[in-house]
């Protein structure tokens, strides 16, 4: 979707185990939910 809007140079980090040990861990594991950092640029 970032590219559809026009952003370029999109990068994604390695996953963060955001919900590990939290109450929502089971639901997160069921759908393989992780946190990521996204980087993108609006063309100049």
């Amino acid at each position, binding site marked *: 979707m970032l590219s559809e809007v026009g952003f370029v140079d999109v990068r994604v980090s390695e996953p963060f185990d955001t919900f590990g040990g939290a109450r929502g861990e089971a639901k997160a594991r069921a759908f*393989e939910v992780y946190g990521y950092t996204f980087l993108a640029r609006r063309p100049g």
Partner: protein
Amino acid sequence: MSLSVDPLKLREEVKKKYREVALDPGGEHHFHTGRALARHLGYDERMLEAMPEEAVESFAGVANPFSLRRLDPGQRVVDVGSGGGFDCFVAGLQVGPVGRVVGVDMLDEMLSRARRGAQRMGLDQVEFREGLIEDMPVDSGWADVVISNGVINLCADKRATFEEIWRVLRPGGTLQFGDIANGRPVPESARANVDLWTA
């Protein structure tokens, strides 16, 4: 484009959940909060140690928007859904006194908490504005950088959110945000259940 959920219903559910976090950050939530979460996500340890508890205790991010790129001194930054202000404080420390950071949030409880934190930390370059992230109170092309953390996944219309981010970014500006993504598809029945978006 048809949306999976009613945006207004979802917004009310998000308000309810994050009002709970603002008023009781150490309470029982389905996600981690606070300083321990920030450490887990790789925020700078020395910076964290120097932060007052009030500035970090309601942090409920899902990743680290600064992990791929540190901000430059003097930059102008918008935080989309700034919550208790933690990422704005990090941004404020990175851009320094000649930079500017604007946090946008829709919850009075979070805005009050964030303003107290900025005052406590003496971050005059950080301010908070009430608003919706689909219609931010920020001039077009004002920001060098837009950050966000764990917020865009809570928007019913993500394309509209990214288009609004595009509007406030200057040409050549950078979007750096933390958010969640799923490796397995979520059934349509679950996507349409507004209660599950914040559970």
